[in-house]
């Protein structure tokens, strides 16, 4: 048999043995297509949940009255990480620069 015919015959025979379950694959493709639409929604839910957790944790650890006091009396600010330099220090620095 000529090579061309042999080749055609072999490829046709091999291909004929492949009979995928088309219905199952169709269902899988549809399922995957639906999943593809999900990430944006999942991301939004995850961000909302994370924000809620952070807000709850913040609300539990912060003392609202303390914050109010600190706002009304700026000189008594002593929140963690805040500068401990006083207004007097600023005045002395300003005096040193000018004089």
């Amino acid at each position, binding site marked *: 048999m*000529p*090579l*061309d015919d*042999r*080749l*055609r015959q*072999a*490829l*046709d025979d*091999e*291909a004929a043995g*492949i*009979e*995928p379950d*088309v219905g199952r*694959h*169709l269902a*899988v*493709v*549809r399922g*995957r*297509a639906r999943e*593809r639409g999900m990430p944006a929604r999942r991301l939004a839910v995850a961000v909302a949940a994370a924000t809620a957790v952070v807000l709850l944790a913040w609300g539990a650890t912060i003392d609202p009255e303390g914050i109010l006091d600190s706002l009304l009396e700026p000189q008594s600010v002593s929140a963690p990480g805040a500068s401990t330099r006083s207004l007097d220090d600023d005045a002395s620095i300003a005096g040193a620069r000018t004089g």
Partner: protein
Amino acid sequence: MSFVTRSHGDQAVTQKVPSARPRWAAGDGPGQRASTSELEAAYETFFRTHFTNVTRTVHLIVHDRARAEDIAQDAFLQLFRDWPRIAAYERPEAWLRRVAIPLAVRGLRRDALWSRVRGLFLPRLAPAPADPDVLEAVGRLPRAQRVAIVLHYYEDRPVAEIAALLGCGEATARVHLHRGRRRLAELLGEEGPDAPRR
């Protein structure tokens, strides 16, 4: 040439048939857009008509049935996402092959890379037999030659289409086909055929 699936009792049999060109997205009248349910139904029909043959072609290229089914699925998934647009094309199956064939080629490229990596660490396997059968010989061709041979001999694609599917010029596709046939003739101990004319 195109492919059609027919039911014979419980079994669906897919066969090569002369092209009948359905307009998958056509509404009832000219210029009418298909509704969502019509599109869904058209997609299902298209899927049932073409899935088997895309899987078969990809299988002949990658020589791995499970992976061929995965690749066909990926291609049909991409089609699903763009179906409202693609359905209006004259030949959506051509678009589908332009997705599926490169996916198969990419798979072969990954295989080649892995076999090179494996070769660095593992002892080489025994050499392939001196007189392989036709399919084994096809499997030993470089990927571009293999794809060209499968598309030409199994799908009866002309050189121009093979070039489009491989993403190369017609002359290059012709060279792939010619070298593939010559290599096959060597592997199978036969005289090489003439170059493709189409």
